[in-house]
């Protein structure tokens, strides 16, 4: 029987390889990147040519030069004979400390506000709502000025300082506190305390794992006593440690000795924290309300208390909702530290993109340094928060 040969569908006509979609999109992307690189190269070359023609100094050599100015708040050592590079590090340290403290305080206040917001108590919930609306709807810069002058104006000058007691003084020059002076034995005691804390935490961790595995709980109180009391005390007496206090005393214009929290630091910290806390509060509220009510009811049915329900059931699940938007708020706080330069807090903008830029005239380099800093900090915060997020999402409850 003759079989008619089926030729099958027509083979597709041969087309040029660049019309294939994968290759085409790759070509377009390579072309785009090349154009972008050309543009950047053009801008850079033009900038260098212009700087050169006007005889403006360029390059990062200036970082080795003597800075010659002073910085009042410094979380890393700096004095006027140091280089611009050291001034940069001091600015970095100041900014990071402010951001870290700000994030801590904002989280704490935000958590309280968020919990108050979902409170069944009408008054507490309203108060939290008022707080949120006020603080997140006023520009941060204004709030910083508010805190700064709210701290400065009512406080007396150093000679009329308010004595808080215990050697602490409050004036518009700052909060002066006694500073403990530790000898080597006392420092060793601190180390012993930290070691004891880690030890007790470890033991408690093992006890929890044991309970999770077997259902039997083990007492842990003795580990805490050994770690936090016995070990430090033993070290203290073994090393014959002693501790003195450097108490601030009025001398000339100001207090000498002790340690001080300057108004700029306090105002910057409060301004940033209270502002971001409003947003954090809303995020916490959203996270808690985002957990299905059935979860709460189920926990109630199991006989958990209100506190236990929050701690063991609601918050762990709420965290999954909370962490991603929280990352943005933390980054925003870190970047907003730049506004603190307006109230004389010596951070990166004030020191690097301010004084250093004007004194060296190297606007491009100093602004680039400042930009690189903020980029690094933001990416670091994102990385850390993403790690937490990963921890929270993969843990099963």
């Amino acid at each position, binding site marked *: 029987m003759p079989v008619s040969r089926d030729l099958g569908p027509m083979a597709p006509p041969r087309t040029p390889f660049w019309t294939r979609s994968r290759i085409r999109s790759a070509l377009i992307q390579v072309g785009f990147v090349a154009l972008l690189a050309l543009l950047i190269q053009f801008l850079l070359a033009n900038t260098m040519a*212009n700087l050169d023609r006007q005889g403006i100094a360029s390059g990062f050599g200036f970082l080795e030069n003597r800075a*010659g*100015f002073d910085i*009042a708040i410094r979380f890393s050592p700096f004095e*006027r004979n140091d280089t611009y590079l050291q001034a940069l590090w001091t600015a970095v340290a100041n900014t990071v400390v402010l951001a870290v403290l700000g994030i801590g305080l904002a989280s704490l206040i935000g958590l309280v506000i968020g919990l108050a917001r979902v409170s069944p108590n009408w008054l507490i919930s309203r108060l939290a709502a008022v707080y949120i609306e006020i603080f997140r709807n006023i520009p941060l810069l204004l709030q910083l000025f508010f805190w700064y002058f709210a701290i400065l104006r009512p406080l007396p000058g150093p000679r009329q300082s308010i004595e808080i007691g215990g050697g602490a003084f409050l004036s*518009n020059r700052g909060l002066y506190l006694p500073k403990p002076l530790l000898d080597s034995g006392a420092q060793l005691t601190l180390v012993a305390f930290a070691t004891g804390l880690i030890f007790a935490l470890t033991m408690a961790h093992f006890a929890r794992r044991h309970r999770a595995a077997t259902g039997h709980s083990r007492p842990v109180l003795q580990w805490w006593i050994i770690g936090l009391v016995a070990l430090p005390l033993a070290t203290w007496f073994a090393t014959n440690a002693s501790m003195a206090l450097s108490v601030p005393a009025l001398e000339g214009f*100001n207090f000498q000795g002790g340690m001080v929290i300057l108004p700029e630091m306090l105002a910057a910290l409060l301004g940033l924290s209270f502002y971001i806390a409003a947003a954090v509060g809303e995020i916490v509220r959203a996270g808690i309300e985002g957990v299905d009510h059935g979860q709460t009811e189920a926990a109630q049915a199991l006989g958990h208390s209100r506190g236990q329900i929050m701690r063991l059931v609601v918050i762990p699940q709420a965290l999954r909702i909370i962490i991603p938007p929280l990352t943005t708020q933390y980054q925003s706080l870190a970047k907003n530290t730049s506004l603190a*330069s*307006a109230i004389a807090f010596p951070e990166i903008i004030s020191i690097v993109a301010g004084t250093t830029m004007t004194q060296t005239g190297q*606007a491009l380099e100093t602004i680039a340094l400042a930009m690189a800093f903020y980029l690094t900090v933001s990416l670091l915060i994102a990385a850390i928060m993403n790690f937490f997020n990963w921890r929270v999402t993969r843990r099963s409850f």
Partner: protein
Amino acid sequence: MKLCTILTSAAALMALSGAAVSAQTLEEVRERGYLNCGVSPGVAGFSNPDDAGNWSGFDVEVCRAVAAAVLEDPDAVRYTPLSNTERFTALQSGEIDMLSRTTTRTLNRDTALGLNFAPVMFYDGQGFMVRDSMDVDSVSQLNGATVCVSAGSTTELNLADYFEANGMTYNPVRFDRADEVLAAYDANRCDVYTSDRSGLAARRLVMSDPSEHVMLPETISKEPLAPAVRHGDDQWFDIVTWTVYALIEAEEFGITQDNIDEMLASENPNITRMLGGEGSPVGEWIGLDNQWVYRAISSVGNYGEIFERHVGPDTPLQIERGMNALHTDGGLQYAMPFK
């Protein structure tokens, strides 16, 4: 604000990196029809806008004189108020044509920052202001004091140098904007407010109680305040330089805003040459018309008139001529000859 600084700087970067900043400033200004002049953001007597937004003051008159010389209209100026940290970038990037903003001439700015300074308009020095109630009558008593200072100024460096040289300590509180420095000092954050003496005199006027504050007698630095242009345009530099000289020379010759028309018929050939009388080459040499000096002086008056009008003893600032008197009166103001 610092944000503005960043934005300005970013804009400046764009400008610096974008089109080549032209060396033909004169052509650009003429084509544009107005002069872009950088000034201080509100310093009484030096540059201050009134309620209608019209700028006036000692620094502003220099802009007006240059606009009169170049554009035949002293009002053809757009003023850009600039903070300490913004000023140089704005000039370098071509955002402004000239800077007339109580700016100290220093080696660093003249070289590494790529600026050219016109003759000094105001010889100043850094002073200190304290509260009368503090019973301080000399800077040497300021050991340990808290000092409010403008960031990114020569003042900030002088302060550090002076206290170091005298083995004293101090706590700096640094702000970018002069009005923030003032507000903090006024709120009693600092014992001492330091700035150029002229600036202190100007800012004392706006404090809550000016009579409460006294200026200490010492002057710890030289602050020759001069207008500036950017490197790379010699003709423009000449125009700004010689406009300033024209104002000083006019005072020396006794040419005022009122008598300038009579002076045109002066017997003194030096005066008629400068004012562009018949056969005068002053326009040809500098690349403008012959009446440029005449217009500058008739628009703003001579140096002495400007001084008296804005900062002199009869103004609220009450600054004496002192070093800013003509050299013939024992001061430092000395114009080069218009020959």
